[in-house]
């Protein structure tokens, strides 16, 4: 499970870490993900979800991806329903509390068609952090004594060599690929992230490959004028794709809020027959559109404007 240090170092050494342009299309970026890889997803629940990249992976018919994310929402349903993933590692999995428990998640996990591997929220964050730091584990004081830890093989309990206290050791997680969506980055991948950071910085530094989608590509000059605003450095990034509204129907901090109407429809459509409902949704919103703009067109310009108005309101104060 945990990568050997020499393997991690060799994979990192082999990457092109030079300052070079890496702008490409969603489809080109999708080719950078191989079947069977571990894909870490940035953002959390309905926020800064790299939805356009997930949309592209589903359209490219990827298979057997292991997917990890702090908290999984509708994108998890769709990764199961599309057959792209049968194994998701997360701490909480449902569309969002106001919509109740995800019927799609329930259907795929309760029938054994797919696996929901549950870790505590902080333990997932600390596993990415250990991976980002280049150490094989991180000590933690939670999880002990719980059923959650009881179902996880890859844990160790130790007595602290300094204090004698009981501690849990969490294995480092170095994903094959990380998918991150940001408000802006330059053509090299230097990224600025406004508002909530979630686990994105640790995920990006831990991963062996980073595919970054961005609302806008800005100049490297602008990055260099405020280097203390850079959250992810260029040499950790392998692909940059400019995708306006790349998190829709989820939110992107300060730019647009969730498309609530659409999310209500989705919940309704997957309530009675989750498998068929999700299939129809995928057909309509994922397979049918010829590109991302057509997908946004299906969401509806009125809804785009409404989500944008609400999103920008964070800066009204």
């Amino acid at each position, binding site marked *: 499970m945990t990568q050997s240090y020499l393997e991690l170092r060799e994979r990192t050494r082999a990457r092109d870490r030079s300052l070079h342009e890496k702008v490409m299309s969603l489809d080109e970026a999708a080719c950078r993900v191989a079947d069977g890889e571990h894909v870490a997803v940035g953002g959390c629940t*309905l926020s800064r979800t790299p939805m356009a990249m997930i949309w592209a992976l589903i359209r490219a018919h990827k298979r057997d991806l292991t997917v990890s994310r702090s908290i999984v929402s509708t994108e998890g349903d769709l990764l199961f329903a599309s057959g792209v993933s049968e194994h998701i590692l997360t701490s909480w999995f449902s569309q969002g509390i106001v919509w109740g428990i995800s019927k799609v998640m329930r259907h795929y996990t309760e029938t054994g068609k797919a696996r929901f591997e549950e870790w505590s929220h902080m333990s997932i964050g600390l596993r990415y952090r250990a991976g980002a730091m280049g150490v094989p584990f991180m000590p933690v004081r939670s*999880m002990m004594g719980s059923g959650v830890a009881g179902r996880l093989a890859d844990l160790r309990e130790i007595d602290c060599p300094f204090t004698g206290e009981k*501690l849990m050791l969490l294995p480092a997680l170095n994903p094959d690929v990380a998918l991150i969506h940001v408000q802006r980055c330059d053509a090299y991948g230097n990224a600025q992230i406004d508002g909530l950071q979630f686990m994105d910085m640790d995920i990006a530094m831990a991963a062996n490959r980073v595919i970054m989608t961005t609302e806008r590509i800005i100049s490297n000059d602008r990055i260099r004028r405020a280097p203390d605003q850079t959250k992810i450095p260029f040499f950790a990034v392998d692909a940059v794709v400019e995708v306006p509204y790349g998190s829709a129907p989820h*939110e992107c901090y300060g730019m647009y809020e969730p498309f609530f109407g659409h999310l209500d429809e989705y919940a309704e459509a997957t309530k009675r027959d989750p498998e068929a409902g999700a299939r129809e949704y995928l057909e309509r919103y994922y397979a049918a559109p010829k590109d991302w703009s057509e997908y946004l067109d299906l969401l509806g310009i009125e809804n785009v404007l409404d989500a944008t108005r609400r999103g920008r309101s964070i800066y009204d104060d």
Partner: protein
Amino acid sequence: MTEAPDFTASELLAVMSGRLLEDGQVVFAGVGIPLLAATLAQRHHAPGLTILFEGGTLGPFVVPGELPPSTNEQRCTRRANMLLSITDVLLLLQRGYVDVGFMGGAQIDKHGNLNSSFIGDADAPSVRLPGSGGGNDISSLTQMIVAMKHEKRRFVERVDFVTSPGYLDGGASRSDAGLITGGMYRVVTDLAILGFDEETRRMKVEALHPGVTPDDVQANTGFEVLIDTGVAVTEPPRASELAVLRELDPERLYTS
């Protein structure tokens, strides 16, 4: 209680649990009733209450009528003092900056263990629940307040699965497992406020809500609940408290 204003069970939960939060405390609140109750306390009697959200928000003022769908959207960050990464905001619990954790619950047992993962056998569950989220971390690392509906199917002898540890098997079993801080402090329901016996760590009634009898509580609890004779009775929700609640959640998003 005829002179008392009408309220829903959820509103009762929000008011009663909000009263447990004191000015100057740092509370780590989950979405739903906890978020609402903490915001109520902040508006009503604890203006200096510092709220933390799992998404990475420190010290916000949630805007009335703009309740977030989870604790991870920008609506949680209005007027916040600081935004942190998820890992760093959860680490504040481990470092000890948090006074109380505050969550909802799906299923709880007599030792305060919470289950939000599986109904039935974890290997072949009848219902796969959404899971821990930060619940396991919060309940492992700080004093907890849980707000939940008081139903026999939710208050069980032993939870099907320990997602968020309470006192585990009671007695010293929690600290023996390595959880040497925190623990279940109060469980707030629509019938009563419950705590835990210092010795056995078994659930006991601390106070009954107006018009509720010990038998009502026992009848809705799946295990023998401890209750002293002459136990205290809570003060019913005030009009001022309900007014704030309804201003915060006009669409009854959390309090239907």
